[in-house]
């Protein structure tokens, strides 16, 4: 079978399946980015807290989930989630193994890793806001919530964008590890295609090309977002 038919969109072509895999990869990465943003801002708040116990908890979180291999975290959520589900099932009379949905386990695992990195990004961005602005906002009578919404969030978002771009790329590549749980994302689809056609070389190249396309496109998207978020800003580094 020639390459055109094998990777094409015909009856025996793998093109459609690979693209479907790529869209699952995108979906699971988006889900994990959202989970990571929610959890990451909570962890960042803990790390910036004045209470020692919260700071220690936040530090512990970022140290563990940035220091332990992603693969182990995925095993933790997949096997751990499944054994919780199985024992719950037994409680209600269901016999045998109940697997946690692989999409959910994968998105949670990658999201929790992503939260550790996002927490550091948010913390750095928050600390880059000049103290004087917060004092000024307080002086004109803004309460904590209004201050958060009007002064902190818009600036943290702009300052965090480059860091978030890095986290997105990390998560995109971490999502390939979810293939070990059997989720039919891009990596898994490439593996299945390679196994059934014995064209390992071709399928891994095709998979890598699709990953590269995704990283290249998301680079552009983040660049554009940065330009847009910084449009009201005078550049300090531009030559006069």
């Amino acid at each position, binding site marked *: 079978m020639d390459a055109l038919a094998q990777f094409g969109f015909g009856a025996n072509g793998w093109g459609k399946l690979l693209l479907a895999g790529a869209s699952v990869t995108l979906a699971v990465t988006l889900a994990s980015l959202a989970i990571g943003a929610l959890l990451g801002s909570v962890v960042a708040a803990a790390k910036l807290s004045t209470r020692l116990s919260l700071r220690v908890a936040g530090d512990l979180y970022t140290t563990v989930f940035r220091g332990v291999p992603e693969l182990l975290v995925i095993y933790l959520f997949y096997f751990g989630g499944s054994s919780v589900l199985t024992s719950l099932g037994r409680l209600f009379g269901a016999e045998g193994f109940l697997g946690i949905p692989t999409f959910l386990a994968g998105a949670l695992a990658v999201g929790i890793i992503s939260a550790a990195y996002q927490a550091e990004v948010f913390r750095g961005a928050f600390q880059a806001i000049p103290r004087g602005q917060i004092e000024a906002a307080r002086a004109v009578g803004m309460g904590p919530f209004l201050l958060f919404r009007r002064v902190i969030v818009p600036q943290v978002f702009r300052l965090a964008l480059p860091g978030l771009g890095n986290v997105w*790329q990390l998560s995109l590549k971490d999502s390939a590890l979810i293939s070990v749980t059997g989720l039919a994302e891009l990596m898994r689809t490439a593996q299945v295609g390679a196994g059934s056609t014995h064209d390992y070389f071709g399928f*891994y190249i095709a998979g890598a090309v699709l*990953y590269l396309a995704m990283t290249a496109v998301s680079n552009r998207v983040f660049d554009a977002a940065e330009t847009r978020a910084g449009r009201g800003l005078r550049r300090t580094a531009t030559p006069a």
Partner: protein
Amino acid sequence: MGLDLPFLFDTLRQLLAALPVTLALFVLSISFGAVLALGLTAMRLSGIGILDRLARAYVFVFRGSPLLIQMFFVYYGLAQFPAVRHGPLWPVLRDPFACAVIALALCTAGYATEIFRGAILAIPHQQVEAARAAGMSGWLLLRRMILPIGLRQALPAYSTELILMVKSTSLASVITVIEVSGVAQHIIAQTYRTMEVFLCAAMIYLVVNFTIARLVALLEHALTPHLRGQPLSVIAAAAAVPVERAALH
């Protein structure tokens, strides 16, 4: 559920038995990767269009695709060709450990190239000019100025890369290399005691990563005597002088 200490100890013992494989993967891939990265950095900074483009493409490909796919490519993808299977490199390419080292080294080289390039570009240009004015050029300039200063400036970012690489060695388990994560996965599949095994494995990785971070910090400290503040005794002595004078009046 109580704490099952014998199980934890037994798990820890089994995982530690696989630690030498993890460390060997790490040391070998970092060494080969750093050499490759130095070559790629030289290409990137050579000012020769074609070499620059090639190195750029290399960095794009190896940073933009997941390590897992690179590893599968090296282990399964290359073996598909009879020319490879009957070629001189087959004893290397059929060994999963060697394939893991190759994939890890190729991948880290992509990241390290950017780190080294950034560090070299951050060397103040006046220092290079001063060295040239003093008659240094070529190899001497590289050995006395660019490499020592560049290495020092690369260390903080490179220590992050080193820790990422320790974590990346866990992917070797997917191509049948029995290292710490592979053993952990095996014990989990046998006992289904995910949390306990995870904690033991996590502890091992955290200790390794912490040690590496401390070692690099020590190296950085040793290489930057000029950035350190003066010893407290000197500052105290200097501060003490005006006070004594004031007391005389």
